[in-house]
């Protein structure tokens, strides 16, 4: 108990005279805060992107896509192939009707509100089962498009990010004009970045004949995916891959979120090294201004270990304060900040929010503590080894 009491006493003393060293201490705090801020901000992009992509992914919905296609854009299915999928085993049926949506996926250029540059916005032609094969998707304003007419409904995120998609507006793509008649949400998922119309109308407008790109299928239950897959893989008339929606979207998210991580971790690491230098600097100067004080304590009988530990506690506390400040700023400024980017996998825009999650903040604060410990160690050793007699003589 003896050493614990000593450590507490010395630490308390250090904290009490912190105001005397306010300049150097705040440099250490700000340095650590900047590291945690940048770490949380950059990685919250990757988190947010992944969250948007995986929110869309249900386990009991399957996507049927031409085999070998890595994205919806590259796929192609004929009407006959779509019929084979619709009648396959494992597909949920509502009476006589299969709960499916055969879809066509094209891109249109619409200007972004943020920088007025043209962006590839996903324009999806959907079948009448579109809302049933997607969870949490519903109209929140206006009405559904009427089949056969040039009408479209827009995702909530697409409407806020891109120009000219207000309810009631008319938008022109090439030679065709479209009326915006409704707005839908999809639980924050990737579909909210899209605009939808009747697939038959889109086929006509894009001269795609009677072809589709993907079929989304509501499964009878979670386990029927393997039955559906076997049936389609063994059917010689059709050559497709079958994924659950969750598998499909998490593989789509991989490229972009890996890219952000590859950028984010090294930057944080380098900044953390910079912050360690800042912390070392401030702790060295703390030890040197407290030289006499430390020597006095030692002369009074305080052990070198309690001086060492209390110095490290001081630097860890400073780093913790910095980490909390940085994390708080990151959360207040970036959490929920909406951006859109071009997804590598689908070649189209995905609108997402930065997500400063609890585990990111924990990682950030953990990093801060590591910086504090490393930054405090060498100065603490110096403090503990201070030759008492010499330091006192300098009085």
């Amino acid at each position, binding site marked *: 108990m003896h050493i614990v009491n000593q450590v507490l006493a010395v630490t308390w003393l250090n904290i009490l005279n912190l105001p005397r060293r306010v*300049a*150097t201490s*705040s*440099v250490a705090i*700000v*340095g650590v805060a*900047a590291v945690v*801020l*940048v770490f949380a*901000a*950059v990685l919250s*992009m990757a988190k947010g992107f992944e969250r948007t992509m995986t929110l869309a992914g249900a386990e009991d919905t399957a996507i049927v896509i031409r085999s*070998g*296609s*890595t*994205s919806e*854009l*590259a796929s192609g299915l004929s009407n006959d192939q779509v019929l084979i999928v619709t009648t396959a085993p494992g597909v949920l049926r509502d009476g006589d009707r299969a709960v499916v949506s055969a879809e066509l996926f*094209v*891109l*249109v*250029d619409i200007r972004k509100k*943020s*920088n007025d*540059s*043209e*962006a*590839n916005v996903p324009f999806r032609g959907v079948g009448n089962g579109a809302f049933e094969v997607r969870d949490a998707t519903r109209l929140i304003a206006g009405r559904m498009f009427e089949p056969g007419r040039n009408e479209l409904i827009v995702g909530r995120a697409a409407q806020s990010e891109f120009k000219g998609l207000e309810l009631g507006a008319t938008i022109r*793509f*090439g*030679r065709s004009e479209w009326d915006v008649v409704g707005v839908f949400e999809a639980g924050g998922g990737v579909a909210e970045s899209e605009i939808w119309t009747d697939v038959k109308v889109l086929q006509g407008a*894009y*001269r795609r004949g009677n072809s589709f790109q993907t079929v989304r299928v509501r499964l009878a239950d979670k386990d029927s995916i393997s039955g559906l897959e076997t049936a389609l893989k063994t059917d010689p008339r059709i*050559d497709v891959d079958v994924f659950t929606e969750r598998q499909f979207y998490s593989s789509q998210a991989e490229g972009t979120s890996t*890219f952000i991580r590859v*950028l984010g971790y090294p*930057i944080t690491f*380098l*900044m953390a*090294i*910079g*912050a360690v*230098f*800042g912390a*070392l*600097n*401030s702790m*060295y*100067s703390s030890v040197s201004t407290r030289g006499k004080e430390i020597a006095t304590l030692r002369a009074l009988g305080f052990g070198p270990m309690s001086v060492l530990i209390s110095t490290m506690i001081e630097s860890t506390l400073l780093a913790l304060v910095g980490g909390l400040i940085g994390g708080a700023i990151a959360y207040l400024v970036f959490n929920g900040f909406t*951006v*859109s*980017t*071009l997804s590598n996998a689908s*070649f189209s*825009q995905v609108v997402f929010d930065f997500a400063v999650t609890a585990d990111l903040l924990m990682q950030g604060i953990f990093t801060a503590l590591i910086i504090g410990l490393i930054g405090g160690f060498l100065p603490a050793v110096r403090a503990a080894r201070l030759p008492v007699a010499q330091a006192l003589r300098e009085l």
Partner: protein
Amino acid sequence: MKYFGLIWRNVWRKKIRTSLTILSVLVAFLLFALLNAVGQAMSSGGAMTGAARLVVIDKVSLINFLPISYQNKIAQVPGVAVVSHQSWFGGFYQDPKNQFPQFPVVPEEYLDLYPEFVLPDEQLQAWKKNRTGAIIGRDLAELHGLKVGDRIPIQSTIFTKKDGGRTWEFDIEGIFDTTDPKGGTALLLFRHDYFAETNTFGDGFVGWYTLRLAEGADPVEVANAIDEQFANSPNETETSTEAAFAASFAKQFGNIALIVTMILGAVFFTLLLVAGNTMSQSVRERIAELAVLKTLGFKDGTVLGIVLTESILIMAIGGLFGLGFGWLAAEAIGSAMAMFVPGGIVVSTDIVLLAIAMMIGAGVIAGIFPALKAMRLSIVDALARG
């Protein structure tokens, strides 16, 4: 300069503190060089930086095809010297992760359009004799260890062959280099005639057209003339310069510049605090000494200069080493990500000049208040305190 010895000794008065400050400056400029180089690489679009070339795409979206019949119509527009077409093949080699651009092209037209790509003549002749022949860039050859005579299977995610397969095999007939120091060559070019007769969609379409302007032609006029010609047709066009096309593409990734600026802002703020703190500590410790200098007859301006130079010197030492390491890191990352950024990641002269300006600027900002304090010292007070 005659005070350099004095300044140098002052810089190293506290070795640990100065070294730590220099190291944090080093890290800041390393990040500065690296992030700017990455930002520039992403926004320049790598190889596609020709000045006198225009790109004609479908107005609705880049992914829509244009009729092959447009080639002759574009060629007749006044101001167009050469026009040819390319298409996005969307293939990969061995593994979906190995993606790089492949384009079906017309060999001679393409090389005429891109004079920076240099292909030995005998390799061009061999390519023209072989319908399934292809040429690859030096970067790609080095990335996958490919050589002339190899047969390379490319699996397309978009185009199926008429026999039902999606794996297209090409004979490598040549390897080309580029004379553009910023341009990358991680791409594969194969023959459009082979592509057109083999894919299941047929032969009436291409992805986009690229054209070179005749000497003295006005790019805006030519672009308008082309777009007007196809207005109200089923495939309206949008013509822009290659650079503008690449830049608009890069912008789709979101505001990269803004994010880079935010990170740099955080880094520099921290850096200034660290350096400013070091300088004011250093001046505080030397008050008596500076007073002695003034007693000896050093002018106020000279004292100011000495302290400022010391601050700039610390920034410059750290900054120059940081730039050096940043350059090494950019080289390493550039070759590791050759697929994403075909132009490589280059710490350009602009970045170096800007960095030097920032070193001086940061040195002045960090040193100015301590320096002013030193200059305004009253000799009597300072000596009394010392």
